[in-house]
């Protein structure tokens, strides 16, 4: 590596990476939950549409 990453900038990354990484997990988890609901809605609404 030819760039100086900067001591402070590296230390900050170490400090915040845990929180930000957890954020990614939460997001992925949330998306999964959402996708389950979206699918459910699709299934529930379809029969109604047919009836109409």
């Amino acid at each position, binding site marked *: *590596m030819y760039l100086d990453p*900067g001591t402070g*900038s*590296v230390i900050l990354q170490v400090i*915040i990476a845990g929180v930000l*990484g957890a954020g990614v997990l939460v*997001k992925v988890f949330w998306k999964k939950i959402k996708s389950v609901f979206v699918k459910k809605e699709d299934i529930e609404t379809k029969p109604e549409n047919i009836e109409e």
Partner: protein
Amino acid sequence: MNERVAASFRDPSGFIFLQGDTLYRQVNKVYQQDYDLLISSGLYDQLTKHNLLIPHQEVELSPLLPDLVYKILQPEAVEYISYPYEWSFSQLKDAALLTLRIQKTALEAGMVLKDASAYNIQFHSGRPILIDSLSFAKYEEGTPWIAYRQFCQHFLAPLALMSKVDVRMGSLLVNHIDGIPLDLCSRLLPRSIRLNFGLSTHIHMQAWAQKRYANASAPKEQGQAAQKPRVTKLGLIGLIDSLEGAINRLSLKITGKDWANYYSDTNYSEAAFDEKKKIVADTVQALQPKLVLDLGANTGIFSREAARQAGCLVVSADIDPEAVEISYQQLKKDQQANILPLLIDLNNPSPAIGWGNKERDSFFSRRQADLVMALALIHHLAIANNVPLGDIARSMANLGRFLLIEFVPKQDSQVQRLLRSRDDIFGEYTLSGLLEAFEPYFDLRKQYSIPESRRTIILFQRKSTD
């Protein structure tokens, strides 16, 4: 004559050099493993397929420094080089998002960006693209992102300042070639930013950490072996996501005038406007220019007219950051690829900056245009900035071979507005004065009177210098 390009010295992985007019990139042996990984991992194919990285060909060519060489590459040529301080807010934002997208793609392929310089991005066929094929390194699990600080200085700091303080803050990049120092950015941002998690973390906290650890002593020898800083891959992805979010949330409010009416203060009837468009269209059709410089382009109405000519790139330069922003957003919407809007103040154009004043070219030392357009511009130079007509002629002759220039006489209300609060010291400012001043540099080719106005458009051809 082979010559290493003056800006290409920081990274020992390789460098670019010119042979004749063609640009080549030497890959050095020290970079062999990373280069091979870029190709073998499929990352190169993936990035070039999506127009994120400039494609290149490996060529057989005698290297500039044979002792160091691994390979010689010939990258696809970029038509016109521009710099971050000449980009509008959204151009810089798109360049930032491109950098992060590349970093994410690289991570999936087991590599990382080892630098994140805004100068590694150029606009090519209407879109930002990474031009440095040697920016990739093998990703070692647990290592922090080396280019994090550089990314924040080159992209996040100027974007935050342009968005939260004033769009003109982008010009700070001229003075700071390695991006805006984060402590400076931190001091300039308004207090309300403290509630913004992304900016607080990446600007304020990073500036604080830099100051806090500025004098931290280097790790002593083995006895006190320092623990290597560790950032998990998930943490790294979180960091990139967070930067992406912070940048996505930044926007620019157009304050000047309303978008659609940006042209409303011109002095033109519809007939005159159409005639002016027709003159531009006829001129490009007759001259078939490869490169057009539209100076004082505003939101680029006449640039668009010139860009109808196939195979022609129009550099659409204006002093007003909002006009350049509007122009870029419009081009993006229309997917028009052959116009490059740039922020240029002709009364103080981009200087040559960097080591030896040779890293970034001045506006006047870049590629010469085949046609320069200066429509409704001359009064801003001659009257608002007192530039003598002869000096304007000489400068225009340095920019390109043909010149399509509009003369706006004193009776015109736009000129009257400029003279309203000052003495008229501009005796030579007449059409005949202009023709006389331009005569030493140009031959007159055509002269058009614009109907329903007092303005004149003249097509000049530069006198041959040999």
